[in-house]
């Protein structure tokens, strides 16, 4: 099998969030975020044994929820990651909701797009401070979602 020529760079992605009820108003936060992690989803599985045989009897169950972690650059500008996520997280009620979608290749026509349903903002990082550090302040949030769906950007 020849070596692939279609690998995708890690650093040129599109990342968007939507905080409205229908997840219709997508906000591009690519310019104020720099990392998305927690993208592994697991499926419940279990095993048991019998007196016969030498190996386990295994079965699979449902897919477990995922906790997607977005690392953002701390800014005090409206419509950038920190302020948009803070506003959503501080909304009173049982669970601040948000949708998230990302396109590893950048979101052009034909690129893959991964989209979550409305998830719950389960954590939010306020700006840390450190007199010994020299870089920009980093913050972030964690979104708990049930699944991620794949599509191809067409419009």
């Amino acid at each position, binding site marked *: 099998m020849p070596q692939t020529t279609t690998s995708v760079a890690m650093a040129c992605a599109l990342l968007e969030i939507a905080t409205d009820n229908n*997840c219709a108003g997508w906000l591009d936060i690519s310019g104020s975020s720099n990392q998305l992690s927690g993208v592994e989803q697991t499926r419940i599985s279990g095993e048991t044994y019998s007196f016969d045989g030498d190996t386990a009897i295994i079965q699979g169950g449902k897919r477990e929820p995922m906790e997607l972690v977005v690392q953002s650059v701390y800014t005090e500008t409206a419509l950038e990651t920190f302020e948009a996520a803070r506003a959503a997280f501080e909304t009173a009620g049982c669970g601040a909701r948000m949708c998230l979608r990302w396109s590893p290749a950048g979101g052009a026509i034909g690129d893959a797009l991964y989209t979550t*349903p409305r998830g719950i903002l389960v954590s939010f990082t306020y700006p840390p401070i450190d007199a010994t550090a020299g870089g920009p302040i980093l913050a972030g949030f964690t979104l708990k979602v049930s699944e991620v769906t794949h599509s191809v950007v*067409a419009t």
Partner: protein
Amino acid sequence: MIYRVLARLSAGSRLGGYIEAGSMVSDNDLTPRVIAILVDRGALSPVAPPPLGVLPGWKLRAKRFEEAGYDAISILESDSATVAQETGYAERSIEKWKNELRGFMKVRETQITSNCKNC
């Protein structure tokens, strides 16, 4: 031209604004540039239309359409008044049959709104 969707397409800004794999789109739905890219990426594939005579309820009228040079796709792509004139059927019937064809071929009827930021 009609295309079969081979990979779920994101279309429109609303969550759930998808065109599911297995459905059809026409070149009225997407621009030629977008279609070319999606075909190249394997997300769309051009399809040949079924013979009109095999569609449910179309056996009798198929002959007249085919004599006038129409297949399922060219009926959908043509102006209803022109098709009516060339086949001798009423324009209202043509509109109704176009909807039937869209249903048979799972072709979208509404225009897709673009939300791509990097196109």
